[in-house]
């Protein structure tokens, strides 16, 4: 028989959250399809799917938090979580890499190819930014050195504040964690508000040729990730208030702060390659 004093690798019992998650995604997908097919029921079914998904996330993560607080996770489980988060973030990096690759190809191969195709697009000069040879609109692109530059400073600062919060956690100063996290969330929120302002006042849309498409796709997905990161930070802050995390064991905090740094790095790439160059 096994001794309960021996360290164990925690194996969770059977769980209903995965099937709930699948039902949620199928519902969400069906709603989206109906929405695309211009059915009035579409958005409602999508909402239902989102709610089921939210329930699943609360339930599942709730289980994990409970297990963690009950001390079921030893060093090996902790290492599993670390590896998992690392490779998850790597997969997200590859997602953005695909869009950056598309941007690179469009600017350096496709647009020059169109400029060369005089027979089809006479007089099209190419160059960047461009809405393409067939669309007759002119537009002004997003300047880098206004709000986007400010947003760079904001996100970089938020990276500093979350790191400062982490130091507080390591040193056992709860007020520092709380203040650091709160500042990080606040900076993230300001970032999102400023991005929304930029979106509303942009002199082009996602339909403005390939400039609009790449701009909004890249910055849009980035904004989604900032939102997710901010929500995760809020959850972590809530857990801090609930007394979770010790200086020796606080992987969830680290995972979310890694995610936040990743979001920050993606922004730097965006700033350089989408706004600036």
């Amino acid at each position, binding site marked *: *028989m*096994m*001794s309960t004093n*021996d*360290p*164990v*690798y*925690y*194996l*969770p*019992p*059977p*769980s*209903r*959250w*995965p*099937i709930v*998650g*699948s*039902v949620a*995604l*199928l519902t969400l*997908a069906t709603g*989206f*399809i109906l929405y*695309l097919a211009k059915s009035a029921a579409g958005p409602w079914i999508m909402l239902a799917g989102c709610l089921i998904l939210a329930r699943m996330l609360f339930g*599942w993560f709730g289980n994990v938090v409970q297990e963690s607080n009950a001390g079921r996770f030893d060093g*090996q489980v902790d290492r*599993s979580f670390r*590896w*998992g988060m690392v*490779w*998850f973030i*790597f*997969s997200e990096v*590859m*997602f953005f*890499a*695909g869009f950056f*690759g*598309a941007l690179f*190809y*469009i600017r350096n*191969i*496709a*647009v020059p*190819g*169109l400029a060369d195709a005089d027979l089809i697009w006479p007089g099209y000069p190419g160059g960047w930014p*461009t*809405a*393409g*040879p*067939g*669309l007759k609109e002119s537009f002004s692109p997003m300047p880098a050195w206004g709000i986007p530059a400010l947003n760079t400073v904001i996100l970089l600062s938020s990276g500093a504040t979350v790191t400062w919060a982490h130091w507080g956690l390591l040193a056992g100063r709860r007020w520092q964690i709380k203040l650091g996290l709160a500042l990080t969330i606040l900076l993230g929120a300001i970032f999102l508000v400023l991005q929304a302002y930029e979106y509303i006042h942009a002199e082009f849309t*996602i339909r403005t*040729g*390939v400039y*609009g*498409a790449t701009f909004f*796709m890249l910055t849009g997905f980035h904004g989604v990730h900032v939102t997710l990161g901010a929500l995760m930070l809020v959850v972590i802050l809530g857990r801090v208030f609930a007394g979770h995390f010790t200086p020796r064991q606080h992987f969830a905090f680290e995972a979310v702060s890694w995610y936040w740094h990743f979001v920050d790095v993606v922004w730097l790439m965006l700033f350089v390659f989408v706004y600036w160059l």
Partner: protein
Amino acid sequence: MHAATLDDTGQHEEHPYGLMRWVTTTNHKDIGTLYLWFSFLMFLAAGSMAMLIRMELFQPGLQLVQPALFNQLTTMHGLLMIFGAIMPAFVGFANWQVPLMIGAPDMAFPRLNNWSFWLLPAAATLLIASLFVPGGAVAGGWTLYPPLFIQGGIAYDMAILAMHILGLSSIMGAINIITTILNMRAPGMTMMKMPMFVWTWLITAYLLVAVMPVLACAITMLLTDRHFGTHFFDAAGGGDPVLFQHVFWFFGHPEVYIMILPAFGIVSTIIPTFSRKPLFGYVSMVIAVASIAILSFIVWAHHMFSTGMPVGGQLFFMYSTMLIAVPTGVKVFNWLATLWRGSISFETPMLFSLAVVCLFTLGGFSGLVLGLVPVDIQLQDTYYVVAHFHYVLFSGAAMSIMAGVYYWLPKWTGHMYDETVAKWHFWLTTIAFNVTFFPMHFLGLAGMPRRIPDYAMQFEGFNRIASTGAFVLGLSQLLFLYCVVKCIRGGAAAGDRPWDGADSLEWTLSSPPPYHSFGVPPLVR
């Protein structure tokens, strides 16, 4: 390290029974079983579509299906086989075997594991339902090229969403496998003592994590071009249809290695077992698999030689493609050297593995031929390509899955399968496979394009032969089904180690293994 594992229900191994057991399980063996049955179902569904395709192509003229439905059948056959049959089958093997082979109690993230599986029926529902919507199912080829893809009906969006869900499942599964292999090996099992099957899955999992998100990129751009006014693939807006091809094939080429590396792992397990000799050149095999994976990232445009890329591009991708032949050849030579001076017996898993080695090599040669740009210009988009990828995917991937099923069925069920029926399955499959697909090389060389429902008169002869072989090939798989079901229901007792040449950790357990195994991790010397 660890001495024991407990689940939340304490000492007793209580788990729900009936339907709820399968829906809520966090057990890698259950989840492996779910993946394998799902993949078999998809294999039969996609195979039926292939039967319809070959029936139409039996003769020139349109007899059974009109071009619109024909294009749906070819597209769905490809999507279901790749994403529904081959990939889930290999994940099923990973689930069953990886924890057992490394002496781990389960996967690193057992609940996530369950979700990775249960996402598949959701995706399959979307994809199969798309056959019945106005306009019919996706019909632009499994490669989804725009602008054709932009023209399609609502089924195309269903396919995009289904692939997003499949991608999510694969990425989470891959993260699980990487973490399991890196973090949960039994004490003493260093990386260089891991069974070859585990190595191939480690590397496959890295490929999945790297490229499935890129597929997500590509299909998201298709979705926005279709519905949200973007111009990624529209020249008038400054975009380029060829952009899609680049992004897709950056995923697509590693994808084909994702489908073959686990096959190599299975073959590298079975051949040493039935040669009663260790795998030759273990270190070199590891390096070969890693090289194949790394090289797979820089060859993608060999699927695009006729798109009009500059000479420099064609030459670069030609050279890199030819280079991939080297590590692949190394593996074949190592298998050969494993056989050499062994003590060889010919049970069904071994027969399938030998067929894999021979026939995959032929597929490799046709791949090399296609890798040479001038020849590829003649053969791109012809039946030569269809022959090539069926040689590597059917006689490479699918037959290695069959090999693995026969090999591990005794362990999973505790019963020996019926060797006579299994051998019938093997011989019918192998012969019918070659009758079906070998003539397609000739058809391609002679000038028959692919993805056409009707063809010119000179192609009739070989098409008839191919269709005849296809009918036999399809029906023979029912023997496989029979064999598997019969084995599950009963058979001669297998014992712990029915294969005397087998030496990995799973053979130290009972057959079938306990529901929770390696609660006490073994010490590996």
